[in-house]
């Protein structure tokens, strides 16, 4: 299980961790910065985390997933700092003997991460910036 807050996500490293001769199915989800949101051009994103708590919450989710599905390897990486369009901000990976489990667990982890893990994203447009989800 590899759960980390990092500066940069390296896909090769992530896959290297997930690859296993014991199991045949790897599902990897990568969230990247989009160059637009609601019709406005996005210049960059800045992420900050309550690191200690974010790691705790991510580890809780990983434990729930391991209870629900037969998982061989599990990876959750989230960056903090500044990222430009196209760059990876989150990587979730699950290796299992069954592709059902790898898809479902990966989906569960990214969905739940977005709900509970204390990480915040600020979108920078050409003329202003906003904390995403802050207001209804």
């Amino acid at each position, binding site marked *: 299980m590899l759960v980390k807050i990092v500066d940069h996500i390296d896909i090769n490293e992530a896959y290297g961790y997930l690859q296993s001769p014991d199991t045949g199915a790897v599902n990897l989800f990568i*969230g990247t910065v989009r160059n637009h949101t609601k019709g406005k051009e996005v210049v960059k994103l800045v992420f900050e985390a309550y690191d*200690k708590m974010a790691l*705790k919450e991510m580890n809780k989710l990983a434990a729930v997933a391991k209870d629900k599905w037969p998982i061989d390897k599990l990876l959750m990486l989230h960056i903090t700092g500044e990222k430009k369009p196209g760059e990876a*901000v989150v990587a979730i990976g699950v290796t299992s003997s069954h592709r059902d489990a790898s898809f479902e667990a990966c989906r569960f982890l990214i969905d739940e991460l977005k709900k509970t*893990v*204390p990480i*915040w994203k600020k979108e920078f447009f050409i003329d202003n910036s906003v*904390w995403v989800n*802050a207001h209804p």
Partner: protein
Amino acid sequence: MMEDCTDRKLGDQTKNERMDVILFGISRDIVGEKKLKITPAENIQTVGALKQWMKQKYPQLEKLSSIAIAVDSEYAEDEQNLFDENEVAIIPPVSGG
């Protein structure tokens, strides 16, 4: 016995003259600081009381989609008591991923 307790309580108050509240994201922007120092004089005993106090002092917090409090880096219910040794943080709506 009663005197002993009072002594200890006073001693604690002297050691920890304020509660630190850690701030992130939009709540940090609203308060204008990374850490808010709350004096014992405010007499905030529970998570719910802290929320109320924060919203009164910083009305813009009221406009957020939600606001949670973490105690020792765990989400806490309103009823939970706050102690001097707790690490307390305001958790505005999360937006990771």
